Each structure stands twice: as structure tokens, then as C-alpha cells.
């Protein structure tokens, strides 16, 4: 049932998400923080904003995006679990 295509797609998705995860936190929040701090975002300096706010928002979007894409992937490859309950997310 579970073929190589499913696993490859899974890995690709995880890798993509982790790249974004790294970029916003370690990239924007830490490595390039001084550079981004030159850019104002309202009363924030952009690098500081990424470190204390932005990265958290992106993390949140990432997890929901991953859950949604994995659900679609499960359906496409017919490995969706049979619902034990009628709950939908």
C-alpha cells in the first residue's frame, strides 16, 4: 500500500518545512538579525520582531500547513486511517 512515492513526498514536505523553520528563526532571528534590524516594522526593528514574534507565527503556520499537506498525501496514496470516531479536524 505504502509506496516509495509516498515516503519521498513525505520527506520532501518535511525538508521544505524545516528549511523555512531554519530560515525564520536561525536566519532572520539570529544570523541576519543586525542586517534586518536596519528595516523598521512599525515600532519594531525587523530582526528583533522576527526573534520575538515573527518566528513563532511562522512556526504555527508551518505545523498546520504540514498537517494539511500530510492529510492530502495520505488520501492521495490511500493510506488514510479509517476513522475510529467521526471527528474531523
Amino acid at each position, binding site marked *: 500500500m505504502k509506496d516509495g512515492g509516498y515516503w519521498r513526498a513525505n520527506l520532501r514536505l518535511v525538508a521544505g518545512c524545516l528549511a523555512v523553520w531554519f530560515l525564520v528563526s536561525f536566519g532572520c532571528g539570529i544570523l541576519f538579525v543586525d542586517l534586518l534590524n536596519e528595516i523598521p516594522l512599525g515600532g519594531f*526593528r525587523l530582526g528583533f520582531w522576527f526573534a*520575538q514574534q515573527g518566528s513563532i507565527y511562522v*512556526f504555527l503556520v508551518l*505545523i498546520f500547513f504540514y498537517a494539511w499537506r500530510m492529510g492530502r498525501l*495520505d488520501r492521495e496514496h490511500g493510506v488514510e486511517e479509517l476513522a475510529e*470516531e467521526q471527528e474531523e479536524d
Partner: protein
Amino acid sequence: MDLTTLTYMVVGASFALYIGIAFWSKAQGTGDFYVAGKHVHPVANGMATAADWMSAASFISMAGLIAFLGYDGSVYLMGWTGGYVLLALLLAPYLRKFGKYTVPEFIGERYYSRTARVVAVICLIIISFTYVAGQMRGVGIVFSRFLGVDITTGLLVGMGIVFFYAVLGGMKGITYTQVAQYCVLIFAYTVPAVFVSLQVTGVAIPQIAFGSTVADGGAWLLTTLDGIVTDLGFPAYTDGTKSGIDVFFITLALMIGTAGLPHVVVRFFTVPRVRDARISAGYALLFIAILYTTAPGVGAIARLNLTTTMQTGPVGAADGNLVYEERPQWFRTWEETGLLSFTDHNADGRIQYYNDANPEFAARAAEYGWKGNELTVDRTSSSLRTRRSRGCRTGWSPSSRPAGSPRRSPRRRDCFS
């Protein structure tokens, strides 16, 4: 009704609620006890995970830590939330797929080894004990404040209550108790945060407030804060003092640590399906993020509040500092508990709060007749302190208050949230 009665009633009611839930959902068997029968809705699980994760450390200390660390405090914000991405993408769904009760059980089966399982158990116990040690200090502080007893007694009372409902309800009881706890916790945290944001900036949402302008001055809050702290010899709030490489690796360590915390990992065993485990991690982070994005706002405002309370006028002016005898009520209360202390080094009866570890500033401080920093703040409590001070002031703004004017209010004691 006087404050003490009210406090006991509110605290008593919330514990009655938790214990009531424990009775209502008491465990019926092994499955119920360990994984709540795998019937927890992902949203409820997310909420329970959030309450589980944001125990004493986040609730009491985080805003305070960030207030003092400024940008450096970001390591906790990114570290403790970024771990959830790793958890959601790399761990939770796979552990749930395996369908066991605990992580050591998973490791034992996966590696066909009892030894591996024993090693996992030992690791788990060490991690849990270390973690609980820190949390228990927080429990002790909170209960000692509520009940007016010393920290050890407070700790024992708190442990007793938790032990009671944990043993009775198992994972099932804990899950629903924690859902209730989350609601109580987030309400208690965000309501004062909203009000203090409104007071200081006129913006109700703390996440936006600390990027806004202060209500009367028109200058950006963070710019104002950077200005005043650097005037007192501290590093700028939005700049770090730690080197980039330190920040990088501390953040990384905190992220990986978060993803591996046993009491968080085990929560993902309680949902019905693998896809529920994935989405549940998202809900967990959503509920955590509500507090974690509020905390830096509170931290920045608290730092501004503390600094401008002590530094009432221009830096270096003879009457620029708060007169000790005119200190606000929250200052006195926290002095009594030893979490805030004042030593009048230059015997002028005023509080000089500045960075005396900064050699460049020391020369100027000496010119002003300052003989060292006179205010010591216990950082673990600074969030509580802020919570106490901020709910209780009305009409406070950084510069509209005449220097040294008394700001006492007899009702200040009823502001503990």
C-alpha cells in the same frame, strides 16, 4: 469582602474544579490511566499540552527574564516554540503510529532490546526530576504567596493537590484538568497584559502594543525603552549582549530539548489517529503562542515601567530618582518577600537603578554622586512583580506623572492575578 477571603475563594474554586474533573473522569483501566483511552480530541490535547508545557517557568518567569535580557531573551521564545515544529514533523506522528503507551516502550520495541528500554527509563527519570525540581520552586512560590506560608509548606500543599488528582484520574483526569488549567492560566495572563498595554500604549493587543507608540509621548515604545536603558548604562533592549553563536546554539539546544520532553511527547499518544497527532501539535503551539507572543510585550512594558518608576526625572539630575520613602505599594510587598531589595549606597534616600558593571558609565555615575546600583530584583519573580504592579495602577504613563509624586493606593493588594 476583603482581599484574603477573595483570594482563597478564587483559588479554592479553581482547585475544586480540577478535583471535580478528576473525579468525573477517573481512570477506568490501564489505557485510560496512561493514554486517556486514546480518545482525546486534538484541540483538547493541544490545550492540555499547552498547559502542561507552560507551567511555572513560562507563567512566572518568562516575561521577567525577557524584560531583563531584551533581545537575548529571544532564545527562550524561539527555542521553546521552535521545538514544536520538530515535534510535529519528526516525532509525534511516528510515535503515535507505533501505538504504545510510553516512549521507553517504543524504544524497547523498536530496537528489540530490554536494555535500551531501561536506558530510556533512566533518561526519562533524570529529565523529569530535573524538570520537576524547577517547577516545584515555582509551585512553592505561588502557594506561599496565596496562603501566606513559607515556600516549603507552599510546595508541599501544591504537591499534595497535584498528587491527589493525578493518581485519581491518570492521563484522562490530567488531560481534562489541564484543559481547565489552560483556560484559567491564559485568562489570568492575558487580561492584565491587555490592560497594561492599553494603559501604556493605548493599543489593547500586547503583541502589537510593544511595537506601538507610548500613549502620550508619541515616540515608539521600544525606541523609548532603548533610549532610557542605554542612558543608564544598560545595553540597548533590542540589541543583544550575547554573541551570535551563543544565541544560535542556545536556541538550538532549547528547541531540541523541547521536542524531547517526555511529558510533552507522551501527550501525543492520547489522540485517536496519527493525523490527529499532527494537527494536535499545531493546536498545542497555537495555545502556547498566545502566551509566548504576549510575554515579550509584557516584558518590554515591564522594563520600561520599572526603569521609569525608579528614574523619574533626567538621568543625573539631583531629583531624578525615586525617593525611597515614596516607593509604591508593590515595591513594599515584594521587599517583604525578599524578591526586591534596596541598599542606599550613597545615602541620599533615593533609588539609583543603573548598570554599575559598565565601566564606561561608572565615571559618569561617580560624577552624579552615585555609588553603585541600589536596586536588586529577583528575576524569577519579576513577572509576578509586574503583574502585581501593573494591574493596580491607573492612569500611569511614563512621563505625565510629576517626579516623586506618591502613587499609593490602598486597594493595591487586590491586584494579584
